[in-house]
C-alpha cells in the first residue's frame, strides 16, 4: 500500500512490458569537466565533436543486465540552478571533475557540497570521476578526494575514480562500482 500513496504515477512503470531493471543516473559537474565526453564514451560513441551543453543529454546504456538511463546536464553556471529539477528519483550521482583545472577545485567542491545537501539525493551513492588524467597537469584522485572532503560523507556510499573520458581509461572501473552498488541497494 505504501507505494500507492506516492501517487498514481509511481505505479505506472509497472505497466511496462519489460522487466529489465532501470537505473537513473545523473551526471553533474562544472562546465568543461567532460560530462558529455564521458556520456558518449559510455555509449561507445564518437567523442570528437562535442560542444558545450546548453540543455541536457540522455543515453541509455545496458550494463550488468540493467538499463542505465544516464542524464548529462549542462554545467555552465547559468544552467546549474536547473540541476535540482533532475535529481528526483535518482539512483546514483556521478560527479565529474577536470583534474587539471586546479583553479576551479574550490568552485567544484562548493557545487558538490551543495548537491549532497539536497533532500532528493539523500543516501544516494556518489561516484566522483577525477577526469582528464591523461593530462600531465592532472592532480591525482586521492588529492582531489581530500580536497572534496569525501571522507566526511556519512550515510552514503561514495567512490572516487581516476579516469580519462577521452581515452576511456578508468571509465569501466567506475561503471563496475556503480553496478555493484546499485544491485546491492536495489532489491
Amino acid at each position, binding site marked *: *500500500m505504501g*507505494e*500507492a500513496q506516492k*501517487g*498514481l*504515477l509511481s*505505479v*505506472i*512503470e*509497472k*505497466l*511496462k*512490458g519489460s522487466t529489465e531493471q532501470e537505473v537513473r543516473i545523473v551526471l553533474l559537474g562544472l*562546465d*568543461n569537466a567532460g560530462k558529455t565526453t564521458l556520456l558518449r564514451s559510455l*555509449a561507445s*560513441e*564518437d567523442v*570528437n*565533436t*562535442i*560542444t*558545450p*551543453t*546548453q*540543455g*541536457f*543529454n*540522455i*543515453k*541509455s*546504456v545496458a550494463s550488468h543486465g540493467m*538499463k542505465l538511463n544516464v542524464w548529462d546536464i549542462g554545467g*555552465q*553556471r*547559468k*544552467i546549474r540552478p*536547473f540541476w535540482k*529539477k*533532475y535529481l528526483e528519483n535518482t539512483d546514483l550521482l556521478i560527479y565529474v571533475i577536470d583534474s587539471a583545472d586546479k583553479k576551479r577545485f574550490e568552485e567544484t567542491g562548493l557545487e558538490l557540497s551543495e548537491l549532497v545537501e539536497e533532500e532528493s539525493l539523500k543516501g544516494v551513492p556518489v561516484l566522483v570521476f577525477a577526469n582528464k588524467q591523461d593530462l600531465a597537469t592532472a592532480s591525482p584522485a586521492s588529492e582531489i578526494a581530500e580536497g572534496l572532503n569525501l571522507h566526511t560523507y556519512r550515510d552514503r556510499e561514495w567512490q572516487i575514480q581516476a579516469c580519462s573520458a577521452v581515452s576511456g581509461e578508468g571509465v569501466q572501473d567506475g561503471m563496475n562500482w556503480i553496478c555493484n552498488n546499485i544491485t546491492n541497494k536495489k532489491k
Partner: protein
Amino acid sequence: MAEEDSEWIIESIVGFLGSPEWLIPVMDFVENKCTVFDDEDENKLSYTDVHQQYKTLVEKLLENYMQEVGISEQQFLDACTSPFAKSKSLQSVFQPVLATDDFQMFRSLMAQKNMELQLQALRLIKERNGELPECLTDGVDVMTEMQQQEMKILQEVLQKSKEEYEEEMSRRLMSGEDVGSTSSVCSTHPTEGRAESNKSPDHTAKPPLSLQVNDSADTVEERVRSEPGSGREEVSSKSQESPKLSPVVSSSSMESRVLPAVTAPLKSSQPISSSISQAAAETCLEEARREAGFSKPFTELSVSQQEQLQQRAAYLRQQRDKLHALKKEQQRTKQNSSAGEAPPTLTAAPTKSPVNTVQEISAEERKKLQKRKHLADKLKEEVIRK
C-alpha cells in the same frame, strides 16, 4: 485479486484511454506544446517543464476517472502488474500513459506530433495554392542544382576558414596561450547522421504513438500561422552542432562559463515596415539574430551583420505575414489579399560577407535546407503519391 478483476479494470482503463474525456485534453496538450520539440540530439531545458506539466495532466485525468468509476489505487496497481496489462497489444495503448514515466518516449511523442503538424500545414498550403509557395519548396526540385553548387561553395569556405582557424590556434599554442578548452570546437564533422543511432534501440523502435484523433481544422490553422517560425525551433540547440569558427565563439575559450545572452532585449532604432508594430519587428529581428546563430546582442554586431539580420528579419516577417494571411483567407474567403508574393531567396550570398560571419550563417542555412528537404520529401511521399 482475481484475474478477471484485473482484466476488467484494465479493459475499463483502456476504454477510457480511447474516450474523448482522455483524448481531447491530451491531444490539446500535445498539439499546443509540441512546437519546441525538434529532432536535435540534445534536449532543451524547457522540455523538462513540459514533461512535468504532462505528468500532472495525466495524473489528474486518471485520478478523476478512477474516482468516477470506483477503482482504488491498490486495484489499479494490481491490475497494472497483471500479465494481461503487459500483453503486447496493450502496450501501444498505454504509451501515452507510460510517457509520463519515460522522458525519451515523451520526447519522441512530442517531436513526432510536431512533424505531423508541420506536414499538415504544408499539405494545407498545397491544397490552397495548388502548389507550395517557393519559400517552402526551395532546396527540393527548383533549387537542387543551385543548392548543390552553393553547398560546394559553402564547403570550400568552411574548409578554408577551418584552416585559417587552425593556423591561428597553432600560432597561439606556440605563444603559450591556453587553448585547451576549444580543442573540440573547431571540428567541422557533421554530427547529423549520427544523431539517430545515438538513441537507445528501446526508444527508436517504438511504433507511432497512438494519440491519433482527427485534428481539427483549427489546429492546422494555428499551425500554419506559426509555421514561419519553423526555423525558430531549431535555433538554440542547433547552433551548437554547427561548426563554430567565428571569433564570437572561439573567443569563448576563456569565457565559456558565461552564456551568451540569448534573449537579450533588442532596442533597434531602425525603422521597419510600418505594417507591423515595433514589438513585432523586434521579435522578428531577434528571431533572425538567433536563427543566424549570432550570440551577441544586436547592437554589438558589426554593421554588415546588422544588415544581414535586417534582411533576415524582413524575410521572416514576410513569411509570417503570408501565412497569417493564408489563415485569414481560410476563415473568410472574401479576404484573399496578399497570399502569394515571392519571398527573397533563402540563402545569403556566401562570397560577399566577411568570412567568419558567413560560416555561422551558412552552416545554419545548410542544416535548414537539409531539414526542409527532408520535410518536403516526406510531404511528397504523403501528399503527392496519395
